[in-house]
């Protein structure tokens, strides 16, 4: 074959695959939204679910998903950044750091149901945190940690080493160089990693069945003191998330409109992830611009 023809053929095949993936994604997205959107109303988004009767909503579940995301990120981001910065800037290349890297890799490929069971035995029972948002956040952190560590390490390594040298030659301390010179440059990649991690929080169900629980007690949305038992902010209450709710409604829902509720909740979940993605990207870009003055 002539080089030019081969080139054309290869380009064609690659474009075909790319389009195929886009088509599958758009198809799925369209399907979920098409089935679910008609069921979404303000009432659906805010009211409590019903067990047997029609017309249940997803208010508490929606709140739980968002709150669990925040709780998880409060634990994951500092730990992940810390470990990632250590691996990129402080860890000497030796057997120990190689071992840490390997363990992180293995951790990231753990089946979520196994991590969920581990959470049940250790966090829920042994440490007696019960089925709670906190237990869920711990388990999700175990998932997200490898991703955050790896992304942070790569983000810091991708900063040209001349930047660090320039900082050193100015008499800056290592810590100052990391926080003020390397971090702003690494930020966009870290934001991307955080979005990926957050997406997993929204979507995870298996691991949460045994840790955050499958029920939500009655929540009093007028009491925002995190220490109160019925407060929505109480991290030690059981909390069924949107993803878990979809699974539950689909598999054992008794309400006559269970299928519509599952479809509506799925659409809400997808939209939520989408909104979060856009917000996080916007925030990341705004911070990057602020730090670097790049337009």
């Amino acid at each position, binding site marked *: 074959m002539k080089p030019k023809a081969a080139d054309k053929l290869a380009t064609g095949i690659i474009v075909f695959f790319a389009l195929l993936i886009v088509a599958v994604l758009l198809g799925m997205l369209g399907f979920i939204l098409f089935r679910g959107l008609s069921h979404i109303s303000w009432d659906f988004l805010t009211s409590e679910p019903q067990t047997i009767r029609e017309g249940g909503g997803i208010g508490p579940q929606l709140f739980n998903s968002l709150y669990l995301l925040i709780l998880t990120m409060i634990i994951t981001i500092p730990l992940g950044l810390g470990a990632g910065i250590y691996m990129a800037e402080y860890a000497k290349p030796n057997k120990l750091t190689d071992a840490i890297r390997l363990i992180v890799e293995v951790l990231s490929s753990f089946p979520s149901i196994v991590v969920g069971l581990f959470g049940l035995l250790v966090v829920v029972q042994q440490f007696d945190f019960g089925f709670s948002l906190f237990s869920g956040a711990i388990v999700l952190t175990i998932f997200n940690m490898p991703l955050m560590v790896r992304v942070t390490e790569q983000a810091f390594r991708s900063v040209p080493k001349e930047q660090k*040298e*320039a900082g050193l030659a*100015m008499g800056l301390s290592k810590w100052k160089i990391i926080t003020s*010179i390397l971090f702003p440059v690494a930020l966009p990649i870290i934001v991307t990693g955080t979005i990926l991690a957050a997406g997993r929080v929204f979507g995870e169900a298996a691991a949460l069945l045994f840790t955050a629980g499958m029920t939500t007690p009655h929540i009093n949305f007028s009491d925002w003191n995190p220490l109160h038992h019925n407060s929505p902010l109480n991290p030690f209450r059981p909390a069924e998330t949107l993803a878990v709710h979809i699974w539950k409604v689909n598999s054992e829902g008794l309400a006559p409109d269970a299928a519509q509720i599952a479809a509506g909740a799925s659409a809400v979940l997808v939209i939520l992830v989408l909104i979060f993605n856009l917000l996080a990207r916007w925030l990341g870009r705004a911070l990057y611009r602020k730090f*670097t*003055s790049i*337009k």
Partner: protein
Amino acid sequence: MTDTLRTENLKVYYGEHEAVKGIDMTFAEQSVTALIGPSGCGKSTFLRSLNRMNDEIPGSRQTGNIWIGDKDINSSETDVTVLRQKIGMVWQRPNPFYKSIYENIAFGPKYHGIKNRKQLDQIVEDSLRKAALWDEVKDRLHTSALSLSGGQQQRLCIARALSVNPDILLLDEPASALDPISTSKIEELIGELKKSLTIVIVTHNMQQAARVSDFTAYFYLGSLMEYNETSIIFTNPSKPNTQEYISGRFG
């Protein structure tokens, strides 16, 4: 003069390899000293050792003394962060921070304790003027430093090094990645700066060494072969090896 930079039996090792083999050198103040020699002769390593930048390379160590006046800065008691304010450095490839032009200059002084806005503005203007960049950037101080051309970026890096008021400036092939016009600007600048600074420059460009420097040191295989006034090195070197390198017969 009390603050003269001087090395005594300075050796630098990378692992077992001795890259710099016991250099004794005294740098004249308010003048430019050029370090020349074929690639791998240890001149850049030697330059980096002067502000202890080799400390950052795993497996490297350096022995001997580096005197500034009567203080040995190659001892473990020396606070390198203080030392590096006294000795500025500029590299081959411009490496401005990913920040605005203003922030690039103000960053060092701010870190070292100057908080007053007016004072910082003054430092930024002074440093940029000294680096002959002020007129080109004064209207866009708060845009990204990365929007500047390569030559401007390099002068910004020099301005940045000047912002913390060093006594000594180390230049590691500062013009070798630039076009001829930018190069001549940098060379002019070096001529200006030596009025108040001790400058050490590594260069591969013989004409450049001849143009800008007052003294020239010829390095070969980690040793200092010959060190004298530039005019003597280039017209009447005492060693045949120096003569051959300068006339371009090897290296």
